[in-house]
């Protein structure tokens, strides 16, 4: 059967350019196989004898923590790296990729986590950029028709004339997927496909992925964090740990618990036990608080709530609904335009950032690299960020570096930070270890109020579990905690009360025992809670 026959048989609208791939493959046939792939870097074996196969019409997820060798494997598959040992077969033919172009020409498409699009160009221009036909005179009208047809086929909604800078992260991802498909991809590699998407966008993407699989494509999502997604769509899953395949399972046979255990190498607690603490005095009272975002628009519209001693209030919401502004205005980094902040009975609406630290407010910012740490500073100096002003650490303007070193060593041990030592630069730490050291130094201040903004975003399961445990420890010690998270499961499992936020307004506050996921989800999307109470 030739390509045109396939087209005729299935009556699809095919991309105008097909790569050099044999057309004769049926659902279930192996279209990609990697055999005993080994890749060494100085000092480490990133991939050790990894074997992997993909069938037409299959979704085969690759799961692993940061550093498990996923990125290396993905780069080998897309021709960015050459394996030291092992073979790759595509459509039954042994191949050697010298560059991504070779991979593309064999029908492999890659959707990067960090989008590689031209922001000032339209969606259509981005899609046809680099297409073999684009070197000649463009027939934009025809290309547009083809792109629209392709999008419709898989249920993507996208305006081909929109400029890329106007798009959300989810829409940009759609553009990347269509670009790969338009280029004729038969095997689609997705790097962390849902990491930047809202729940609604995620659902829509999953439907499209299933549609692609139904039409005979092979899809390989690489996933670090979101286990439910693996369970929702994939047929099979290969788990990597420390560069080796530790499990290959049919998704129907696995549970989230089992996958996490395979990834981490030990049992992981998903249901953290909430310490039984009676909420005490009101620590923080926020009245009618408003503030602007960086563009000067009203981002927080008269928010009010209270948090008591030993209580966790969870702010649930999709990114960009005023959470960041709320955290910053409470930390003193952003000026309120209205309302009051009362901390332990004192009005701190106008207090400086430093005064708030001194009073016992601790803030874990969402931007760990840019705000929460200084990459060029040693870990000791990073710990000092929350201690340089502390009378126990600095006297008469002179910092006691020996003491800071001792504290840093203790924190490294207590929080299990993996690092060569306290003098290592912060930029050498992985995301999880960096978050641990930030958490460690904020917790070491024993804050009365802990503001944790997206504390587990982007972390490995192991680190995520650790951070959550520490937040519960703060609660057990009597701190009031404001937990801001985009992960609804996290908010629901940690909080005592849940406050969904939508467009800068809190839609109601619900006690955790009465909270239902659907209700909170709806409130995050703008509906007012009915059974809400203050």
């Amino acid at each position, binding site marked *: 059967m030739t390509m045109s026959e396939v087209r005729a048989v299935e009556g699809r609208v095919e991309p105008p350019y097909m790569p050099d791939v044999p057309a004769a493959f049926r659902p279930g046939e192996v279209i990609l196989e990697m055999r005993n792939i080994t890749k060494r870097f100085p000092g480490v074996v990133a991939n050790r004898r990894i074997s992997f196969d993909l069938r037409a019409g299959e979704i085969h997820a690759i799961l692993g923590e940061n550093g498990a060798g996923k990125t290396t494997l993905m780069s080998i598959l897309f021709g960015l790296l050459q394996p030291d040992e092992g073979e790759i077969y595509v459509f039954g033919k042994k191949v050697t990729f010298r560059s991504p172009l070779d991979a593309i020409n064999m029908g492999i498409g890659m959707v990067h986590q960090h989008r590689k699009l031209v922001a000032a160009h339209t969606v259509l221009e981005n899609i046809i950029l680099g297409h073999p036909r684009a070197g000649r005179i463009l027939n934009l009208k025809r290309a547009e028709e083809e792109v629209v047809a392709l999008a419709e086929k898989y249920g993507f909604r996208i305006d081909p004339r929109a400029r890329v800078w106007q798009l959300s992260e989810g829409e940009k991802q759609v553009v990347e997927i269509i670009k790969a498909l338009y280029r004729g991809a038969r095997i689609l590699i997705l790097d962390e496909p849902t990491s930047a998407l809202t729940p609604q966008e995620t659902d829509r993407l999953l439907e499209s992925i299933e549609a692609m699989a139904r039409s005979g494509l092979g899809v390989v999502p690489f996933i670090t964090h979101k286990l439910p997604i693996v369970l929702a769509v994939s047929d099979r899953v290969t788990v990597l740990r420390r560069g080796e395949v530790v499990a290959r399972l049919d998704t129907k046979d696995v549970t989230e618990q089992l996958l996490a255990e395979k990834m981490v190498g030990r049992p992981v607690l998903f249901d953290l036990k909430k310490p039984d603490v009676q909420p005490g005095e009101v620590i923080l009272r926020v009245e009618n608080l408003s503030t602007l975002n960086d563009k000067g628009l009203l981002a927080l519209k008269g928010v009010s709530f209270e948090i008591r001693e030993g209580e966790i209030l969870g702010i649930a919401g999709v990114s960009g609904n005023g959470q960041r502004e709320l955290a910053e205005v409470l*930390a003193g*980094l952003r000026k309120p335009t209205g309302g009051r902040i009362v901390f332990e009975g004192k009005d701190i609406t106008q207090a*400086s*950032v*430093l*005064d*708030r*630290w001194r009073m016992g407010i601790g*803030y874990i*910012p969402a*931007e760990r690299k*840019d*705000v*929460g*740490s*200084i*990459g*060029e*500073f040693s870990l000791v*100096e990073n710990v*000092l*960020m*929350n201690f*340089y*002003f502390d009378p126990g650490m*600095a006297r008469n*303007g*002179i*910092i006691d*570096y020996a003491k800071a070193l001792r504290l840093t060593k203790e924190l490294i041990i207590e929080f299990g930070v993996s690092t060569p030592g306290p003098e290592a*630069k912060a930029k*050498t730490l992985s995301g999880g270890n960096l978050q641990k050291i930030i958490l460690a130094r904020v917790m070491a201040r024993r804050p009365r109020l802990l503001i944790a903004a997206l504390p587990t975003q982007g972390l490995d399961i192991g680190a995520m579990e650790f951070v959550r445990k520490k937040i519960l420890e703060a609660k057990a010690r009597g701190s009031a905690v404001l937990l801001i998270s985009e992960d609804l499961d996290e908010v629901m499992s940690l909080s005592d009360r849940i406050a969904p936020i939508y467009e800068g307004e809190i839609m109601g506050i619900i006690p955790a025992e009465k909270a239902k996921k659907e209700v909170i989800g709806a409130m995050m999307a703008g509906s007012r809670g009915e059974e809400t109470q203050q």
Partner: protein
Amino acid sequence: MRIGRYRLKLEKRVTLPGWQAALISSFAILVALLLFSVIFLLAHIDPLVAYKEIFSYAFTNRYGVLLTINRFIFLLLATFAFIIPAKAGLWNIGMSGQLYVGALAAFAVVYAFGGKESISAPLNPWIVLPLMVLAAFLGGALMGALAGYLKGKFDVNEIVLTMLLNFIAFWVVAHMIKEGGPFMNPQGRGESFALPKSLHAPLIFGVPFTIVLALGFAVILEFVFRKTTLGYQIRAFGQSPPAARYAGIRPFRIALLVFFLGGAMAGLAGYHYFGAVPGVYKIARTYGYFGDLSFYGIICGLISLNDPIAAIPVALLFGGLSIGGRFVQGKLHMGFGLDYALLGVLMITLVAFQFFYWNKITLVRVQEES
């Protein structure tokens, strides 16, 4: 690149120990001298002879070495004027304007005490000299603080700001010392009145006491940056303003402070050259030349990676070569501007060799291909 069985490989350096930086810089100096030999060869002069003359005049001749040290003090203070804001991630290009204002302030003190009238005016140096130093310090500091205030308050670009303030200061000096200006020399030679003899700065083995200030500040600044809360805040802000804000550091305060202190260092440099160097004791007609020379503080700061102690040998080298170069130019009858050409080549080479501060080249044995 492959050489026989070996391959050259470029690697990023993670850390740079001080001794390696010193080694790289020393090597860079040798390369610069080698490159500059071409100039001597073109003039049919043996480079070895020329360099021997330069170095022996600058560092061993008893007249030359005093000139070198005076330039060294000036350059070191100008370097501090750069380093202090640079630690906070801010660029001070205003050392020349700040040193002019510092010099004017010092002379204003003398003017106020009536020292303009006569070279033999009997003023009490125990009172007036400290006031001159203080005035120079504050004059430069306020000139710097002006830029720091505007930077901190309105986030105006500090490079443009300090550079443009230089022009203002330059013409203010001209207004003060030229025809009809209040500080005009009675003989009217386009320079300021001379200091009374009673106010000539005390010398230590022929070197003005300002060397104590310059070296003292090297130690103080090193201590401030390494050990104090203030130094920590300045460095944190220099590395990451948003992280510094998160930690409770106030950007406005830091910007104002580093430019105040940086300007003060330049102000002292102004006092040193026009008030304390033997044989000068006035704001010279060629004051613009010293304004230009102070920009070498930027280069010295960059080469010493903003380390106040490391700046000492760098400033000494630049001071010595500018003196030795000028001397050889006269002695060997070479073209005008030899000293600046030499400094220029040295500067470019040192900056180019900074590549090796962050990268290293290693030799790797190529594995036999199977």
